């Protein structure tokens, strides 16, 4: 039993961090937000070349075989740098296609996701993220998880069959999102039917678990970046003749942010090791709440400058809010924890 990242995993994180630091990522985020994806796609290719998406894809489809721990390591760095685009959705799509009974769609679509030649989005809820610039638009309709007896109060209504479709391009412009880098479109109806039946529902549940793990990691990275930037700010900003970071009221808020993030981290990696629905839900809610609490602290301690779109802090502040609700609200995740069969 050794619950620590090994040297190789730490080196992987450091290399991604260095690459994304050198890559002028904030400028790519702003380009992406205004619908100019070229710089973001260039960044995407470099992330893919580092092997990040291949970590969610079996070797048979040109991936590195699913490695949730390494994927979590990578997504912490993607969050730390606010990398734009459907990063979580591409992982979720890969998990879904891998889990289908029929290998056809996986053979056809996954190699390009592993290499970074293609991006994917996956709609299980109300929107299709980045659907205008994405190559593979997957939409699941109908029940997305096998119903559990305890959740069915009476005789169940006959459910429509679960269908997986390759959706057409969106017909309307995106609806504005609190995080401008997340371009949300109404799912376009129709498109090629890729698969149908109970196995699509089961595969969707798998996709949801992977999406939650990746979101938890991304949120942790967002929170760590917000903490770092705020610590730097309060050390430099002086009022009353001293750095504001020497005041206890400021210190204690940052200490609380540090505690929240450092206790989210082991939940994330524990979930990556077990990949149970309960562990992943716990990691998701905890990392997202830690990141969001850190965002509130970051905004407060930056003062008015933090409340501007122009200042780069906004790239992380808005993402912390968006990730909290994406792929399962805090209440939904907590319900999975108390309702789960397995306890720690």
């Amino acid at each position, binding site marked *: *039993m*050794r*619950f*620590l*990242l*090994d040297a190789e*995993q730490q080196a992987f994180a450091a290399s991604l961090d260095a690459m994304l630091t050198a890559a002028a990522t904030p400028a790519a985020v702003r380009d992406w937000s205004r619908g100019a994806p070229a710089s973001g796609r260039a960044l995407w290719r470099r992330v893919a070349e580092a092997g990040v998406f291949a970590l969610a894809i079996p070797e048979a489809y040109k991936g590195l075989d699913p490695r949730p*721990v390494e994927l979590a390591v990578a997504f912490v760095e993607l969050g730390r740098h606010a990398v734009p685009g459907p990063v979580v959705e591409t992982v979720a799509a890969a998990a879904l296609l891998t889990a289908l009974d029929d290998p056809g769609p996986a053979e056809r679509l996954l190699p390009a996701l592993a290499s970074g030649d293609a991006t994917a989005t996956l709609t299980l809820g109300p929107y299709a993220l980045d659907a205008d610039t994405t190559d593979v638009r997957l939409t699941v309709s109908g029940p997305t998880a096998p119903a559990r007896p305890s959740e069915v109060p009476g005789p169940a209504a006959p459910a429509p069959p679960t269908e997986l479709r390759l959706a057409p391009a969106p017909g309307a412009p995106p609806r504005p999102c609190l995080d401008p880098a997340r371009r949300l479109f109404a799912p376009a109806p129709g498109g090629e039917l890729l698969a149908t039946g109970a196995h699509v529902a089961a595969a969707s549940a798998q996709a949801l678990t992977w999406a939650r793990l990746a979101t938890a990691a991304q949120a942790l990275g967002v929170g760590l970046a917000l*903490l770092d930037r705020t*610590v730097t700010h*309060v*050390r430099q900003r002086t009022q009353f003749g*001293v*750095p504001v*970071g*020497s*005041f*206890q009221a*400021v*210190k*204690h808020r*940052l*200490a*609380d942010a*540090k*505690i929240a993030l*450092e*206790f*989210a*981290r*082991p*939940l994330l*990696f*524990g979930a990556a*090791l*077990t990949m149970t629905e309960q*562990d992943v839900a*716990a990691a998701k*809610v*905890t990392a997202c709440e830690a990141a969001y609490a850190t965002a509130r602290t970051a905004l407060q301690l930056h003062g008015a400058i933090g409340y501007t779109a122009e200042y780069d802090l906004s790239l992380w502040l808005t993402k912390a809010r968006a990730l909290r609700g994406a792929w399962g609200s*805090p*209440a939904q*995740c*907590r*319900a999975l*924890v*108390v309702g789960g069969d397995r*306890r*720690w």
Partner: protein
Amino acid sequence: MDLTHSPADEAFRAEARAWLDAHTPPVPLPSLETEEGFAAHRAWEAELAADRWSVVNWPTEYGGRDCGLIRWLLFEEEYHAAGAPGRVGQNGVSLLAPTLFEHGTGEQRARVLPPMATGEVIWAQAWSEPEAGSDLASLRSRAVRTAGGWLLSGQKTWSSRAAFADRAFGLFRSDPDTPGPHQGLTYLMFDLRAQGVTVRPIGRLDGKPAFAELFLDEVFVPDDDVIGEPGQGWRVAMSTAGNERGLTLRSPGRFLASAARLAGLWQARGRPQDSADRVADALIGARAYQLFTYAAAARFLDGASTGPESSLNKVFWSEYDIALHETALDLLGADGEWADTGWSEGYVFALAGPIYAGTNEIQRDIIAERLLGLPKGRR
């Protein structure tokens, strides 16, 4: 990175579980903060020690099993899952013993540790003074040189377990003329029944005498009971403080067991939806603390020492413990008023957590200054 225990570690866990299944008292012992309960808990320590379960991570020569940190964590998980009694000897075992292992002499370890392991000698801590709480280095109790030892005089307070304990350990000012308050302090052990010691029990919030004031009037302590060099007491004590806040004061097993009991209470009360989130947070927090501790243990085994990271721990568990017990009392509704339940006892105990072992305000200062690198300022 993995979470799989070796077969040998699992066998150790199974052995602990079997022993605890056979020996754990079927009815909870009376509160250890009462005279009757203190005696019952002391007897339980002897029962544990008879089969070498009282101090499993100690070397075998002092009554332990030299089992290592991971097995200690597994033992604690089993211990609390079994609902076994609270540990009346904890002040000695988790505060004094690590200090003796690091700074004591062989003679001191051979003399002090075995009776600590059996509960024959129960230790109280004597840190705080009426004018020295968070600012511990401002303490004024004196140790004055005399033939063959020292004479202790002054007043200590909030001395946990001292109402019924046998001996105590703490810091005394042996040199009043040093340039800084952290110098000239000496770490000493003394007998609570020695001539010149007056113990005045203090009722905690529920009235139970969980701590005491100590009045010391020229209490003789032999040189053999000085730990480390005279005048170096602050450095010696800080290694203890690191242990207290770090790995060994509150094991994750305790909170995993409490969270499981809370989930059981919630089920028994019909799974009320308005409490679901808080119950989930108790389950999640226990898991987070367990995994955080496994990571800390791995770093520790790699040779890292307990540093300012232990302040993260201390704030986390102390606030977690209160939230968990508040949830339980809220679930109980009007039945939450009874003071003679495990939940109430746990609640009152938890309320002290953010205050002792360095207040959480001090811990947050440490986190901000030593982990985040923020500038020192006025407290």
